[in-house]
């Protein structure tokens, strides 16, 4: 019984709701309109990032550089668009051009990661860990560690106005969901995540599909940068520095397997909700940042344990 429950796809969803219901009486303001709107707004970039991470995790890889990609995209966009020194300043096309530029940055770094992993056969962990260091540094270097203000208001609206931001993030999440569940690319991703040898023998273009996952993750990181930067109305190289833990935590808590082959956007959505509500309620309960991190760490460990346990059960053939 317990085992069936632990194996359920919707475990995290249920836990999240149970958590909210339990905390509601003790947490003043949890259900208030402003608070929920705030939670939702800050949840959106995380969701977009986590969708990219989900795709990469399905291949059995990991993308640690996602948040560094976000930082680079943010400052490149900021440098181009800001009203003071940006070369797009004042241009009526500044926002679309800036967004495209940011997406281009994500695409390029993602393509590099994909090339290193799929063609050079480097371990994803190393490639993206060094990517995280390098591009994290690059973002700071590009801005001399300054924050960039005075971004176009149309751009700020993309991430800052709830309906618009929700439409963008929701649209992207839906697109990834459809990609995974309804296209040939999705089937190939799962197949190679389950068993890369088998996928190769069965005619799956393993290299291209793997590289594609990193490209997608890069693009989605850049899209998250658009949302985040707009929300903050400033471009910062420190954007999302603390976000990596949340991204991987949310994905893994949702049930996407670190061993590859298992993962869904819906699960990730549940994971993101879980992490965000945990964050928010502990904040409202006046817990310190350290406590928060410790609780999150424990939650991720529990999720990883659950993943490993499910795998053990599978291997035992039950």
């Amino acid at each position, binding site marked *: 019984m317990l085992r069936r429950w632990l194996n359920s796809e919707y475990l995290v969803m249920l836990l999240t709701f149970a958590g909210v219901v339990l905390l509601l009486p003790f947490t003043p303001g949890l259900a208030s309109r402003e608070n929920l709107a705030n939670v939702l707004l800050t949840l959106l970039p995380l969701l977009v990032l986590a969708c990219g991470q989900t795709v990469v995790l399905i291949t059995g890889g990991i993308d640690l550089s996602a948040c560094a990609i976000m930082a680079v995209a943010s400052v490149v966009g900021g440098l181009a668009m800001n009203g003071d020194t940006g070369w797009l300043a004042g241009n009526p096309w500044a926002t679309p051009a800036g967004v495209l530029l940011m997406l281009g940055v994500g695409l390029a770094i993602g393509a590099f990661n994909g090339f290193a992993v799929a063609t050079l056969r480097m371990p994803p962990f190393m490639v993206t860990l060094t990517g995280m260091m390098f591009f994290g540094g690059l973002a700071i270097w590009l801005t001399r560690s300054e924050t960039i203000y005075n971004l176009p208001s149309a751009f700020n609206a993309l991430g800052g106005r709830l309906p618009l931001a929700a439409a963008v993030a929701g649209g992207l999440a839906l697109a990834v969901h459809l990609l995974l569940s309804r296209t040939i690319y999705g*089937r190939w991703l*799962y*197949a190679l995540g*389950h068993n890369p040898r088998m*996928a190769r*023998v069965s*005619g799956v273009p393993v290299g291209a599909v793997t590289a594609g996952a990193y490209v997608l993750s890069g693009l989605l990181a850049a899209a998250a940068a658009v949302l985040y930067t707009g929300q903050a109305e400033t471009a910062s190289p420190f954007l999302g520095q603390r976000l990596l833990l949340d991204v991987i935590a949310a994905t893994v808590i949702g049930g996407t397997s670190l061993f590859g*082959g298992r993962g869904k956007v819906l699960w990730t959505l549940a994971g993101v909700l879980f992490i965000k509500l945990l964050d928010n309620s502990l904040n409202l309960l006046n817990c310190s940042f350290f406590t928060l991190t410790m609780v999150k760490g424990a939650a991720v460990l529990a999720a990883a344990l659950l993943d490993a346990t499910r795998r053990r059960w*599978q291997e035992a053939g039950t």
Partner: protein
Amino acid sequence: MSALLQFERITKRFGGVPVLRDITLALPAGVTLGLVGENGAGKSTLMNILGGNLRPDAGHMTWDGQPYAPSGPADAAAAGIAFVHQELNLFPNLSIAENLFLTRFPRRGRWPVIHRRALAAETNRWLREVGLAAPPDTPVERLSAGERQLVEIARALSSEPRLILFDEPTTSLSDRETRQFFTLLERLRARGLTMIYISHTLEDVLRLSDQVAVLRDGALVAHGPREQFDKDRLVTLMVGRRLDRLFPARQPTGGAARQPTAAEGAGAPGQAAPDSGKPEVASVLPQGVPLLEVRGLTRSGVVHDISFELHAGEVLGLFGLMGAGRSELAQILFGLEPFERGSIRVRGRPLASPQPTRCLREGVAFLTENRHEDGLALEASIADNLALVTLRRHARRGTGWLNRVTLADAVRGIREAVRLTPTARDAAPVRTLSGGNQQKVVLGKWLLAQPPVLILDEPTRGIDVGAKFEIYQLIVQRAEAGAGVLLISSELEELIGLCDRILVMRRGEQVDELRRAEFDRERILRAALHERSAA
């Protein structure tokens, strides 16, 4: 002489299939026993039971008069039984000395510190014994295959066992090393060590053993002093005849091929031109162009100068013992392994650098030998596994959007065609299926592609008799639809029952080719067995 080791009515089944039946065998101390049998005769299973890797379903063993029921390799080692396996079990990153003494390093007194000088001296002693001139601290990865085999032997000896088992110990040895190894065996025998020697090189077995035992289909069919045997008798004993197997009718007009050696005369489609009136693939081909043409295919140390043609409507068998290079040949054909020389043509078109995707496009499908490793995604659903190879047909160009209706139809169709158990849901993970049904899923996913060339590597390994027959039917149907089937099998019966032509391989070389009218178990097995010209 009292028996050092005694097998008493040992029986073992794998998933209902008996692999050892009632084996009773006594091995007196100081005797060398030669153990022979075809692939799958049960030698490995018996030795795994002796080594504690498997437990018998029935029967027991005694060792030195005491009941012996090992629960793991450590128990076998503790009893004084050492194994020298065909596939090497060394740690390539460690040195020779470390490999030899991994579990029992000489220490400095009671401290957990390795006594390096003692270690080197001990290692040298055993290396001298096996005739390997290499410093003890050489990493094993720098040794040749033959040298590694000698290290493996030294490791077995260094535990000072009372019984050593050699499983095909000479396959990776050079002639010089083999001669040296045989002198060593003579020395060990003179010293009174008990040994079991397993080999496909019958001359060696006859020369080195005091007694010979023959296994066939899991049963002990002969056991006696060496003098009772010669090579011919061994081959005859190993081959035997199995009458409990049915094969589907090969030709629409012919009867069930229960007596495959019976000549079928001019009707045998093994000749150059494919039969007229074969539908599908054959009709669009110019007469006489083979579906698959291989010329002089060579990869050093693996396959050497392989040439053959596979015609429409033909089932071509590929027989060979372990290590003959059959699976390796198939992997080269499908682009999973490289080759150095030779050419491959599919339907007349050259396939210069095969890749799985490319081969599939050209119409070659390959069912691999190991369904768990590269045949299936075990955790993925039955439907996803079945559809994987042919997904492109259901995807819109450009977007890759899948048409779930046609996809579901295709899955339903192939499920019925391969007669997959109807109780399993499409969404159930493949892991939950029985071996036979899993194999049907792998076969089904390839059959969905309707490939003109179908390469099957051990398609019936480890599945029950009923499922085997159904898979045979599917193979024959595929050939009758005009495809060419290259069937690799260790089971001679299977090839004789299904094929139009059989190629025999030995150590990477093509050594014989028989048409259906010429099928002869003894001739095939004799060709496949290792010959040793220089003694």
